[in-house]
């Protein structure tokens, strides 16, 4: 029976028919909840069936695999407990690790890419891990070690896909292949335990590295293999993927080696990977972004219909004008608001300028898109100058750091500016450095009036396991952009019997204010938080299978709900108390 809950946020107070003051328990690593750490192998060719081992904790009594409409059929074949690793002493007692053998059948028509699976147990549903569907045969690495050039696994033809695992720290996996003169090959290593690129790269996933070697020997060792190409991700940023990708053209024919290992030498049973080798140059297989809306990513498309998109997120009708595009050139272009400036920084140190006129005070927003080359390679500084040439705004956020009090600056893809004076204004675009430029330094700068709206929405949890009489909370965090002051409604649909969704609250720990916040309000939206509390009644029926509940977020303006701005389906189970 579907349940409906409306929670409303408006200017700091919470409204709702069923307001409950739950001191909500944050979801996450609840003891006893099933948790997957890896699946090996995690890739397969569509139309095939293969056996994989799911590794994790709390999985011993797994009953089924939840695929949520993925083109997979996954059945559990066996379960066992992993032999404890006594060789690695740890300070804390180890949680027993379970190994679940599953048979995965991939439909012949399956869409290529990643499809998530979860395990269903008596203690609830697990987190998800991806199964990657490939359109070529996939081979598993042999059981024997292939850590040296001499024991390298031969790859006879391209394309090739190898499932492997860096099973222990410091392990390196070698694969041997032949290349012809002039041949271009794309190499890719996809991690089955995606890293978030945390500093050190050693605790938050598996960050694979790959390198190519030729067997050219040396004066000291005729058998030495010598590195000819290497790739770790060229751009590294916290939160970005760290899978390895390399395109190499072989100048001479011969036998070569590709080596896979983990950045900084990590390893373990969860460090599964797939090595792909494709003839020619192929684009990197990036994990698709799951987010519906990205307010501040340089790669977001600033379309001609941007104003209507924003209006809709602000609960307003889509009655805005289309945005005109202007090409910038050596001489300053004249444009009218709203307008998108398009150009490229072709010469180092070059600055491109455009002008617009304001008849009176106006609050404007400047948004920047860099379609071809993202920061930190192309780092566009956008300055807004008044008629006297004075800087009235930039996309550079300046403030003082908490630790040292030093001046920090960061480049932002959006800035809002209250302009109080009528007159001519100049928009200047340049690269941060004076050394770099090129056709890839392409920008699109949208200058427009501000439109209050809901920005990014983040629903922080991806599963709910709740016992009868207990409660679990899910946070919904959203950004109030451009002074959005309307309410926000979160509805929860498709709740199972005996489960309710209530409005709740939790409390952020207090933080010290920054030493010097700068003009933070221009660059950072105010984030607000709602808490949805799922409660199971004491007589709620224990569920055998998860039920997908849907959280839907809408703006509410002038007492009317607007269009859906975000939605997320979360599996929920009512489970017996541990």
């Amino acid at each position, binding site marked *: 029976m579907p349940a409906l809950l409306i929670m409303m946020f408006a200017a700091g107070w919470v409204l709702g028919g069923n307001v409950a003051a739950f001191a909500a328990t944050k979801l996450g690593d609840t003891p006893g909840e099933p948790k997957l750490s890896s699946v090996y192998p995690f890739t397969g060719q569509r139309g095939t069936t293969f056996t994989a081992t799911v590794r994790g904790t709390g999985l011993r009594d797994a009953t089924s695999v939840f695929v949520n409409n993925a083109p997979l059929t996954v059945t559990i074949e066996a379960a066992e407990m992993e032999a404890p690793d006594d060789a690695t002493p740890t300070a804390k007692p180890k949680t027993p690790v379970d190994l679940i053998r599953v048979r995965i059948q991939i439909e012949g028509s399956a869409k290529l890419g990643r499809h998530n699976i979860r395990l269903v147990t008596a203690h609830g549903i697990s987190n998800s891990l991806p199964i990657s569907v490939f359109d070529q045969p996939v081979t598993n690495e042999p059981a024997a070690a292939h850590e040296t050039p001499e024991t390298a696994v031969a790859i006879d033809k391209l394309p090739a896909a190898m499932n492997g695992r860096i099973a222990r720290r410091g392990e390196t996996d070698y694969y041997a292949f032949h290349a012809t003169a002039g041949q271009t090959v794309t190499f890719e290593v996809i991690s089955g335990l995606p890293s978030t690129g945390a500093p050190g790269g050693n605790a938050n996933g598996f960050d694979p590295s790959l390198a190519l070697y030729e067997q050219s020997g040396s004066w000291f060792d005729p058998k030495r293999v010598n590195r000819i190409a290497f790739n770790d991700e060229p751009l590294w940023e916290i939160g970005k993927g760290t899978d390895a990708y390399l395109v190499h053209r072989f100048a001479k024919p011969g036998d070569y080696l590709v080596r896979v290992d983990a950045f900084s*030498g990590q390893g373990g049973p969860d460090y599964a990977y797939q090595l792909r080798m494709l003839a020619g140059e192929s684009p990197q297989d990036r994990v698709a972004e799951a987010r519906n809306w990205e307010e501040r990513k340089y790669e977001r498309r600033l379309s001609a219909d941007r104003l209507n998109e924003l209006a809709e997120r602000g609960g307003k009708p889509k009655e805005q004008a289309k945005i005109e595009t202007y090409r910038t050139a050596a001489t300053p272009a004249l444009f009218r608001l709203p307008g998108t400036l398009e150009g490229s920084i072709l010469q180092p140190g070059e600055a491109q300028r455009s002008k617009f006129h304001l008849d009176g005070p106006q609050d404007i927003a400047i948004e920047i898109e860099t379609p071809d080359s993202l920061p930190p390679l192309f780092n566009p500084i956008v300055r807004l100058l008044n008629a006297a040439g004075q800087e009235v705004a930039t996309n550079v956020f300046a403030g003082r750091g908490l630790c040292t009090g030093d001046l920090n600056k960061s480049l932002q893809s959006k800035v809002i500016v209250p302009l109080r004076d009528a007159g001519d204004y100049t928009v200047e675009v340049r690269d941060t450095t004076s050394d770099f430029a090129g056709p890839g330094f392409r920008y699109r700068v949208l200058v427009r009036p501000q439109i209050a709206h809901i920005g990014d929405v983040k629903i922080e949890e991806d599963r709910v396991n709740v016992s009868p009489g207990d409660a679990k909370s899910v946070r919904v965090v959203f950004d109030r952009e451009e002074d959005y002051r309307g309410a926000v409604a979160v509805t929860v649909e498709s709740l199972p019997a005996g489960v309710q969704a209530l409005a709740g609250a939790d409390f952020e720990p207090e933080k010290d204010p920054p030493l010097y916040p700068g003009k933070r309000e221009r660059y950072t939206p105010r984030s607000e938080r709602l808490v949805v509390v799922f409660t199971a009644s004491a007589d709620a029926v224990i569920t055998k299978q998860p039920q997908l509940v849907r959280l839907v977020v809408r703006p509410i303006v002038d007492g009317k709900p607007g269009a859906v701005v975000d939605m997320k389906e979360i599996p929920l189970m009512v489970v017996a108390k541990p």
Partner: protein
Amino acid sequence: MRTVRLVIFSLLAVCCVAAPQAVSLKTIPAEATLQFAGAQQQFAAIANYADGTERDVTDEVEWRLSNPALAKVVGTARIAATGDGALTVTAVLSKGVQSQASIQIHGSQQVRPFSFAQQIGGILTKRGCNQAACHGGVKGRGGLKLSANALYPKDDFEWITKGGTYQVLTAEVKGERVPRIDLKNPEESLLLTKPTMAKPHGGGKRLEKDSEDYKDILAWVKSGAPFGAEDNGKAPKLARLEVFPPLAAMPVDGQRRLLVTALFTDGHREDFTHQVLYSSNNADVATVSADGVITGKRLGETAVLIRGAGQVASAGAGVIGASIPNYPEVPRGNFIDDAVFAKLKNFHIIPSEVAGDAEFLRRVCLDLTGTLPPPERVRQFVANKDARKRERVIDALIGSPEFVDYWTFRFSDIFRVAIFANGLTPKWSQKYWEWIRNNVETNRPYDEVARERISAEGYGPASRHFLPYNQVGPPNDVMAEEVRVFLGRRLDCAQCHNHPYENWSQDQFWGMAAFFSRVFKMGPVVFDHPTNMDLSSKDVNGTIQLLHPRTKVPVQPALLDGSQANLTPESNPRKELARWMTANPYFAEATVNRIWGQFFGRGIVDPVDDFRSTNPPTHPELLAALAADFRKNGYDLRRLMKTIAMSRTYQLSRASNATNKDDVVNYSHALPRPLDAEVLLDALVDATGIQEVFSTAVADGSSVGQAPVGTRAINLKDPDMYFSRFLELYGRPNRGAIPERSLHPNLGQALHMLAGSTYADRLSAKESRLARLLHDGASNARIFEEFYLAAYARFPEPDEIQALEQTLAKRSDREAGLREFVWALTSSREFAENH
């Protein structure tokens, strides 16, 4: 053996042959110009003898003037002008052994224009008043501050004529100002009463009341204490001091006179021999008189420092052994040998023989690749009869991947690849490491490498070195490091005050630092903040400017030579600095010296990055020639290394002879050098056949990493990630600053050798070289030979084999005995050193 025989013969000759006869005489200078009343010129006479030696005979010759009406001899070989005209001065040693010099005199009745800088500054320098230990110290002494060596005469003039106490952190004068001169009662001037001890003076007596210097100061005060000719900025200034001879050789108790000539900005020259302060760097080896006469005390080499008004120069002083009448002809490989062997001959030192093939091979492998040659390569090389086999092996080594490994490691040390030094993330430090490796692998011209590192912007790998702890490093620190790395100079002292020993001023320091003052970080991007844009920081804009710590005035970028850089507010000022630095002669000098130091264990200037006038090169001509060759050949590091390795000097044996056994600075024989910690560990791995395991942290579950098996210590990209007891004990630096490796042995090393896992685990490992040989049923002799080749790169001598067999025979457990043999071999100095 040939040289040894020659040495014995030569030494016998010294005992049996009578003192050689002078065959020619040279007068220095050959010509001189004297201007103004009282102008003088100091001469020296150098005799050449039949055995090829030379000796200073200035005191022994008779000095005759062709026209006594124009000049007079006022001291030993010191000629003073009395009238205008030309004359000849003749030095006569003996019949038929004489030489002449010409003198032009003009303006002899004309009073020299007064210059505070030269005359008063010169006296203060010559009398030692402005030395670092006295009034030339940071804050001066006793309330009087003087610039070191009168480098800043305007400042000195101010302090002397107006008084006041120097403040380090402000240019404001605090407290009562007491002038050091008394215009009403000139004789009562503190500048006169203190150094003559008429009033108490902590520095003791520095001036006699009847001295010319006293009279000059008094006359200056009486004349109203003017600043003098330089006040209008047009008068010529003293540009530098020139010393003859640059390198003085003399026997014990022998003497050599220095002549000091001042070169002025208008091109004219003046004798300054008696207007400077002399000091010996090592008075145990040689002393120097106030007149510039060096006296040898014991065999050795030192430097004599010469301080004039605002300038410092130096001369080498070598106290040499007995002359060698039949000095052998030593073959030369290239220009390096010309310079080294010429000095050795001058110093009566015969170089050692060329090293044997095995000795050479081990040395060159370690120096070029940080790797021991494998036994089979040693056998092949020793057996090879090819006359050019050394050149061929040098080429092979320079072209080897191990060369890339080793020099990536070396430059990662100098350039400081470390996680904390490169943004606190291994992603960035490894990116920086890869940049270095790529430069080494492609043999990129070193000037390009330097320019990129100094001026790196954006997200480029070289820019990561500007981000210690993920913050932009202070401009003063960054600049001092770049100058030390690429110009071999240590300017650090000058950041707080004018350098007390060198001609670097605080203004120069901060002018250079200002090139880095705009370096800014925006996210991961490094750039130079424009000075004409607020970029959101109008209210905190002051941080973009660099303020002089003393004057609090914004500092503009200025090059070390004082010239202002041509910069725009939006440009990268470091590009201009990088261009200037790599075009500066210091750059090539510092680079070749650094590389030279790697091959010989000491630089021509040593430490290799401490060029200063008080630390002169042992072989200035060689340094200049190497630098010129490096410049001419496109700053090619591989070529430079090959040139060094091909020289006979580099290939000399470590075995010394009677003439060179005490020599440690003239490259007359190879000197043993301890292997760096990483190289030693890799050598241990190679010799024993057991790999080292490098782990990233204390074991705590999955967060621990480990370098791939087989990773060599020199190949660790982020050494600070990998703990190694062995590497710490043997002096691995943490790269927190430019590494200065500690190569001194310590007790920890000894204990580690005895009981440490690095040795013990290898001895008992089943996969070791020894285990393999035993498994193959190898004889003792074969095992001895194999390990000698693997560890020492040579065959064991028969007596060594005999001793080993005897020792082993006493052991009931052969395998245990052989393990001890391997331990002894790898614990020995011969193993742990490059020689």
